[in-house]
Structures are given as structure tokens and as C-alpha cells.
């Protein structure tokens, strides 16, 4: 047990319920990201809802890659990217590559950003969201051999920047409570 190696001491016996609890806490980031993406497509009927799906995917991948990289491993990120491609009608591979890039950037900045406050992380996220939107636009243009209008991706980047607290605050609450494997 890796956990008992790190923290020697007395701990409760591993019953079935506790095992399930631990598995759930490890699976929480991936599962909730996929569920949030599916829910973001429900027709609420407000304008510009199409940009909600990439926003949710980007925020979830960024947040968990930064704060719980063990639970947001590259294969999980890839899966989220493929779902983004399929549900968001992007050329296949675009979502996967942009999400993996986000993950890679978050991994690189992890050591610096984990010591910073919420506002700094948010600011860096805005920069990343703009970069990812530009990358998304360039890839779609390249793969469809046409210059797609840039307005939707600009809107998407703006929405991601504006919605970050709305997604990240509940996620960070969950991160410290129901999704924390050390509390199992």
C-alpha cells in the first residue's frame, strides 16, 4: 500500500465500503468532468450555449491537472478530448490534442502555481484559454482546409475566462472534501 508507506500508523480496516470510497475519490475528477460535459449540452435555451462544452472540458482538465494530476492522467485527458471531439462536432483529434496541451502546460506550471492564490491561477488560466482557443481555431482551419470564422473561438475563450470561478470554486471545495483520497 503506497498510502501506508507514506503515512505509517493505525488506520481503519479496509472494508468493501471503504475500498469503494477510495476508488470513488480517485475516479471523482475524471467522472465528474465527463458528466459535466454531458450536462452542458442540455438545451437550457440561452444564447451561445455551444461554447459551454469546450469551456467545461478546459476548466476541468486545467483544474485537476494542476491540483490532482494523479487523478487526471494523460489517458483520462485523452478520453475527455475524444468526447469533446464527438459531442462538439470538432474534427477528430482537435479536442484530444488541445486538452493534452492544456494538461502539459498545467503539469509544467504546477510547482509554481500550487503556491499561488486563486487570482493568479485564474489570470494564468485566461492566458492559457486564449492560447488553446487560437490553437483550436488553427487546427480546425487546417483540417477543414478553410478559414473558419474566428468569432466563436474568441467568444469561447472569453466565456472560459469568465466562467472559471463558477466551475473552479465548487471543484476546489470538492477537492478538499468529497474527492480527497486522504480523507477516505
Amino acid at each position, binding site marked *: 500500500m503506497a498510502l501506508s508507506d507514506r503515512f505509517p500508523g493505525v488506520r481503519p480496516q479496509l472494508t468493501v465500503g471503504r475500498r469503494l470510497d477510495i476508488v470513488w475519490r480517485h475516479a471523482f475528477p475524471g467522472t465528474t468532468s465527463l458528466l459535466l460535459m*454531458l*450536462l452542458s*449540452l*442540455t*438545451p*437550457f*435555451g440561452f*444564447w451561445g*450555449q*455551444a*461554447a459551454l*462544452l*469546450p469551456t467545461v472540458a478546459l476548466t476541468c482538465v486545467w483544474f485537476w491537472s494542476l491540483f490532482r494530476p494523479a487523478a487526471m*492522467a*494523460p*489517458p483520462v*485527458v*485523452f478520453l475527455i*478530448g*475524444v*468526447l469533446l*471531439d*464527438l*459531442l*462538439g*462536432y*470538432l*474534427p*477528430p*483529434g*482537435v479536442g*484530444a*490534442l488541445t486538452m*493534452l496541451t492544456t*494538461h*502539459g502546460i498545467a*503539469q509544467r506550471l504546477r510547482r509554481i502555481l500550487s503556491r499561488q492564490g486563486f487570482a493568479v491561477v485564474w489570470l494564468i488560466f485566461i492566458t492559457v484559454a486564449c492560447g488553446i482557443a487560437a490553437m483550436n481555431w488553427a487546427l*480546425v482551419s487546417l*483540417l477543414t482546409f478553410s478559414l*473558419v*470564422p474566428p468569432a*466563436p*473561438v474568441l467568444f*469561447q475563450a472569453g466565456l472560459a475566462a469568465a466562467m472559471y470561478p463558477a466551475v473552479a470554486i465548487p471543484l476546489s471545495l470538492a477537492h478538499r472534501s468529497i474527492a480527497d483520497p486522504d480523507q477516505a
Partner: protein
Amino acid sequence: MIRPSIQARHALARLTLPVMVVAAFGLMLVGKVDTVLVERARVTMYDASAPIYAALSEPLGQMSKAVAEVIGLWGLRVENARLRDENERLRRWQSVALTLDAENQRLKAALRWVPDPEASYVTARVVADAGGVYAKAVLLSVGPNHGLRKGQIALDERGLVGRITEVGSRTARVLLITDMNSRVPVILESSRSHAILAGTNGPRPRLLYWSEGTVPKEGERIVTSAEANAFPANLPVGTVRYNANGVPEVEPDAQLRALDIVRIFDYGLNGFAAPEVTARSTQGRH
């Protein structure tokens, strides 16, 4: 179980990201080579997730209805006066319409007019936005054995919505007339001249290729044309509005932003395949 050494595990962990990036590039290649496979994967994905949306749309609909009711109570008096006015106006129009209809029937009888075949239709609920960022489309939830086909025409209670581009076992995708890839042959109603309605992904599609000398007029009604055998003639599409740059655009009659229930008509047309499908239809489907 053989446990790899810590160094080996670290090396493996560092390798997964590059491997996944290569896989993403592989996916792009597959997407370019086999479009049918991608389309099937999408349809399967939507078929699997449609029940979630269908289950959610019921309480969501009730919630928005409740909100609308509260807002409605607010402006009850003003709304009532407006409706009384409108009702009076509509009653006048109704008498005009009835007279014209009777006259039309008499003239048709005198000419021995062969009536157009009645179109059959099915009604379906819009359960999700299926356009993504670069397209305008909606997902319909339909029962099994629905008999829908690509190219069939979707209308809401006011006007043309779009055409079916993909059909799954429980879902169908409708490409809206506002989508960038949508082209609809239309007729300007007062001058009877032809034009093409081209989607821009914005809320108002644009008019293109009208004949010289018959410039679309502000407020003119636009209906579909039977040219190219893709649409039946005279379905209501919208009204002409000039934008700030002097480009004629069309305000769609259909409420494309708040689609709830659409009717799918089978006019038995076999002209053009719906957009996006033209390249693939030659490859055949399973």
C-alpha cells in the same frame, strides 16, 4: 504480480503524455481518412446519451414554463391590451384569408388543378444542441423504428428549421438554416425571383445570387423554391432585413433559438443530399 522499479514507473509516467499526443495525431489522420467511421461514432455517442437529455428536458421545460408564467404575471395588463389589438387585426385577416381560400378553391376547380400530394410528418422533441462551436444544429429524440431519412425537412410551427443530416437508432440531427454549410433555394415572394439563402452561423442567414433588377425589398417574405428538388415550394422561411452594411439578410420565421418541438416532413423528395453528406453518400452505409 511483478512490480516495476520506481525509476521504470517514473519513466513510464513521463512517456504517457507523448504517447497520447501521438495518439491524438493518429486520431486526426483517421478522421481525415474515414469520415463514415467518425460519423458512426458520433451517432452512437448521441444515441447513448439521448435518454439523459430526454429525461432532463421534462423538468427543465416545466421550470422555464414556471419562470415564464411569473414574468407573464408582471405584464398582464399591457399584454392583454396588446393581444386584444392583435386579435382584432387577425380577425380581419382571417376573413380575408377565408375569402381568398374559397376563391382559390373555385379557381383550382375551374382549372382542373392536380393537387400536390399531402406530406406525411412525424413530431419530435429537440433534446440537445448538436452543433458545437462551428456549426448550428440540434439533436432530436425519436422513438425506435422512426423511419426518418437524411434530407427530410424540419419545420416548427412558424417556418423552415432545417434538414436532417444524420440519423441514428434513437436520434436524428437537424442542420439549421443558419449553419455555415446550409444553402436553401428560395423565392422572393413579391417579385417571384429566385435566390439562395446561405447560412453564416449568425442568427440571420444571408441572401445570395438574386437576379439582377429584382433587388430583395426590406420586409419582403421569403419562401422555399422547388428548384433542385430538395425542398417543396412555398414553405415559409423568413422576412428580408437589411443589416448596417446594406447586405440583405433573412430573419427566420422559425424560432431557431428556442426550438422545442419540430415536425419532420417526408415530401418524398430525392434531389440533393443534405449538406455534409454529399461526399460520404457514395461510400455507402452499413
